[in-house]
């Protein structure tokens, strides 16, 4: 089942002026795989991700996401992927139910389907008692679990998660990963970035970007063997050394979270 490639990237490059943010990266992600996309701040992860989700045109190279071309079929890509940003993107002033209904509508689901999904999701997350509460009043961990579920509403082939667990408490962080495992087990491909290196160990395959290039790409186990260390944290520290002060020379806005 895990044979089909749902992401194929070949020599993908993005330049801003004379700065190369993403430098000829190549990789494949298979159906149902959890792919960890790691790198230091400013290494080019967000820029690469923006090209894959069809909101930034590559400078050169090729990539197919869910079978669609990142140059010419960006609308089809958007319909076939889910995306959850590190910044909470549901509406604080809508209730849990209203948010689900709203995003279901955006994704073009039928009313019947939305109702079905809404009930399924509320019961799965155990939100029955608070489904009519404003989302803004929920604790961060619940918001993140809800965001993830909403990104899966339209049953996308791939879901992109950009630092989904930043600041979340350790128990909720693990519940979140159980949700990721479950989705992957059902065949959804997971593309995830994180700064928690224990989470890197949960991935089937991991790539580490350093200054726009992919410097390592393998299973966590093989990477640890290759670098002769015990943890992904040590792999990361060995590889992603930041050379003397470097600044983003591109537009800069994609590097900071504030």
């Amino acid at each position, binding site marked *: 089942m895990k044979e089909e490639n749902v992401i194929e990237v070949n020599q993908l490059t993005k330049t801003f002026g004379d700065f190369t943010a993403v430098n000829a990266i190549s990789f494949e992600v298979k159906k149902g795989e959890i792919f960890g996309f790691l790198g230091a701040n400013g290494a080019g992860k967000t820029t690469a991700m923006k090209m894959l989700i069809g909101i930034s045109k590559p400078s050169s190279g090729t990539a197919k996401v869910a079978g669609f071309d990142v140059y010419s079929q960006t609308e089809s890509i958007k319909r076939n992927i889910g995306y959850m940003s590190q910044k909470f993107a549901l509406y604080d002033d809508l209730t849990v139910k209203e948010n689900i209904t709203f995003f279901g509508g955006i994704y073009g689901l039928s009313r019947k389907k939305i109702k079905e999904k809404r009930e399924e999701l509320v019961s799965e997350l155990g939100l029955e008692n608070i489904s009519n509460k404003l989302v803004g009043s929920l*604790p*961060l961990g619940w918001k993140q679990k809800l965001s993830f579920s909403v990104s899966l509403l339209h049953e996308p082939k791939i879901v992109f998660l950009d630092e989904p667990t930043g*600041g979340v*408490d350790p128990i909720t962080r693990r519940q979140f990963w159980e949700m990721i495992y479950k989705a*992957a087990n059902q065949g959804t491909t997971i593309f995830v970035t994180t700064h928690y290196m224990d989470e890197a160990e949960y991935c089937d395959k991991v790539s580490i970007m350093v200054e726009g290039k992919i410097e390592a790409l393998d299973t966590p186990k093989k990477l640890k063997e290759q670098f002769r260390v015990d943890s992904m944290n040590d792999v990361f520290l060995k590889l992603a*050394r*930041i050379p003397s002060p470097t*600044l983003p020379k591109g537009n*800069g806005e994609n590097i*900071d979270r504030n």
Partner: protein
Amino acid sequence: MSISLSNISKSYKKVKAVQDISFDVNPGELFGLIGPDGAGKTTIFRILTTLLIADEGRATIAGFDVVKDYKAIRNSVGYMPGRFSLYQDLTVEENLTFFATIFGTTIEENYDLIEDIYVQIEPFKNRRAGKLSGGMKQKLALSCALIHKPKVLFLDEPTTGVDPVSRKEFWEMLKRLQKKGITILVSTPYMDEAALCDRIALIQGGEILEIDTPDAIVSEFPKTIYNVGADNMYKLIQSLQQYEHVYSVFPFGEFVHYTDKRDSFEMADLQSYLEKEGLADISIETAKPNIEDAFMELAR
């Protein structure tokens, strides 16, 4: 200089942000507030830096009361808030000069304190702060918080969203500042950073769960932890959760941390149960607890 809080509580309308918080930070100590978003860490920082008045309780810094003596406190503490709050439209150097001037000093006068941090951003001193990368902003914010030679430094989540390499460098900087005699109170949601503090307070939902040295907190962990591994992580977690003797199951990197309800745990029993569940490549061995295990046990 020391920090002391006794029975501090603060609510925002109906929400209790912090409840009955008491702890002391000794002079020269590196003390960590460890907890997730919403734990109440920022509220504590704002009360200690005299920016917010507590509903109940008392807090002092070097004996000065945070309400009565706020002016004395503001002169001698440095505060780096969680949100970047320097002037985006001023350059690196202008920001630093601005903060130095406000405190009646100059960059030159205190350069030795900030040198090893500032030297890394000095090549870009004419760049506007808004155009810096996350790591650079963090270094500038720390330089600005240090420019008046504070005796106490408050750092609210300085490493959130920062990659592991930059986080490591940041903690090395903190250790050097501590050697210069500065008392440091730092908060973080990253449990692995707890081990780098002299003492820590674990905090969740506005309440302190435990205060001690990282080693003591870990050694008081009441259960034996087993590292369990198998070929299918998702199935392993599910099977362990359904095991009749299960106490807790938490994924930890490539293994699962498992604790058992019984006093006499039999590895062979669990092994055969997991085999029956259809798992392969099963490994079970005892593991050392860490701060995150302790936090999750206390937060149960």
